């Protein structure tokens, strides 16, 4: 069972068996850690020593590693180039023409890249191991508004959905002779006949999706039930509380370091 519009990858792992809110709490804790850990290398350590082993335990190390790097690489390149060469006052370590590479800029870029890597890794871990519909049900059961939970779910799906629709339109336009390969100008010109049907088509799709939801009583007020039984245990409930507390403590500790 797989859904082409989510990253969820079915595996028989302990991480997959966790209650969605437990995984969400864990990821929230790791997210806070990646922001508050001091130093340049701590977020890399978090990624390598915590997130990667967790991905390994979840049976998804290859995809996890590949997607993390794919997502972070464009940020890393621009960060190192911009911060390295355009850091205000700093220690030059290499001159390239009129520009000079500053060590402070590189350190900042390395720290920011590490944080982005750890944050991306945390969310990928959640996406790979937690069914989005189960997360939506769990949030609804905890009193989160259904519509907000649904928006969260569809937000996860929006990029692959757009991609699938864009590919279908692109194929249709190509079959009518539109040139989509070649020089940059040609590629840009090919974008126009793609964007209009993509945007208009998506708006129409949204309208029909809204009707489909209403037909299925989504807007009905009153108590709702769930077919899925989300397994939860006392240990997990305790772990969730501890993770939330730990995240709050880490954030408070960092703030204390800044202000005192």
């Amino acid at each position, binding site marked *: *069972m*797989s*859904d*082409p*519009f989510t990253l*969820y990858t079915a595996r028989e792992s302990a991480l997959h068996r966790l209650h969605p809110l437990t995984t969400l709490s864990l990821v929230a804790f790791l997210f806070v850690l990646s922001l508050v850990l001091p130093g340049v290398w701590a977020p890399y350590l978090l990624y390598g020593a915590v997130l990667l082993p967790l991905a390994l335990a979840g049976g998804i190390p290859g995809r996890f590693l590949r997607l993390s790097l794919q997502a972070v690489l464009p940020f890393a390149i621009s960060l190192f180039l911009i911060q390295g060469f355009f850091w205000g006052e700093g220690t030059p370590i290499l001159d390239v023409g009129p520009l000079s590479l500053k060590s402070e800029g590189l350190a900042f870029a390395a720290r920011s890249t590490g944080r982005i890597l750890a944050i991306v890794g945390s969310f990928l871990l959640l996406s790979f191991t937690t*069914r989005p*519909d189960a997360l*939506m049900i769990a949030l609804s059961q905890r009193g989160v508004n259904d519509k907000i939970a*649904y928006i969260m*779910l*569809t937000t996860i*799906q929006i990029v692959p959905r757009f991609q699938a629709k864009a590919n279908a339109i692109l194929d249709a336009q190509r079959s009518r002779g539109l040139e989509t390969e070649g020089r940059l100008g040609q590629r840009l010109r090919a974008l126009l006949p793609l964007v209009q049907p993509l945007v208009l088509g998506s708006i129409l*799709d949204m309208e*029909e*999706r*809204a*009707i*489909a*939801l*209403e*037909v*299925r*009583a*989504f*807007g*009905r*007020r*009153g*108590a*709702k*039930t*769930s*077919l*899925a*039984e989300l397994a939860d245990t006392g240990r997990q409930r305790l772990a969730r509380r501890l993770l939330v507390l730990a995240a709050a403590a880490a954030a408070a500790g960092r703030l204390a370091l800044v202000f005192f």
Partner: protein
Amino acid sequence: MIEIDDFSFRYPRAEVEALAGIDFTVPAGQLCAVAGANGAGKSTLCYALTGFIPHFYHGDFSGSVRVDGRDVLAEEIAALAGTVGLVFSKPFNQITGARFTVREEIAFGLENLGLPRPEMVERIDEALAVTGLVDLAGRSPYALSGGQQQRLAIASVLAMKPQVLVLDEPTSQLDPVGTREIFALLRRLVGDGETAVVVCTHELEWAAVYADRLLILDRGRLAADGAPVDLLAAAGLVDHGLRPTRYTEAARLAVEQGLAPSGRPLPVTLEQAREFFR
């Protein structure tokens, strides 16, 4: 079951009414087909029967629409969900995206109705069996073919046990086998004598075979109402922007060419054509 009385509707900024003076009733146990050229008002009628007009699509309206005794124009759409169901033409857009498997997708509406789990399971199994999706229950809705997705859309609405099922061109993206399956399924549905089905369609051959009754819409007005075989064989069909079935056309050509005797009623269905050309 369905009572629509002198109903008219005009979309905002439209110059003419999309529906004008529509008046008919559909009793429980009847499969009623609605035909008409594009723009005749079929989809508007579907939205009016299910409450999406005037609650989702706003505009000027008059008259009344009642389904199972409930005033569709006054009640909220969500409150009508267990009474009247709607299936439309694009199967893909009817998948909510909120659930992972076919079984869970069917459950989505039942969860919103707040049904207890055992009743949900019973209804899901029933809907899967009726629509022939039992073997696909564990699959992702996105992994199904267009025809299977349309059957899933129907199953999802059927599980909510509406007294009235409205379908807007449900077979427009299906192959001939899938089209026939859907019409056969609708025929079985009304067989319980408790459900009324209204299906808007261009598939006149299948409407002639399976429907009890045919309504023809022409530029927003109810142009004809009667038995499908009578209306589809009538000479005035083309005046309403509809094309006779291939059997009627073949028979008419045969009569014109002197290959078949004139004066007999023209066939509409395959069965009738077999008799005609015997």
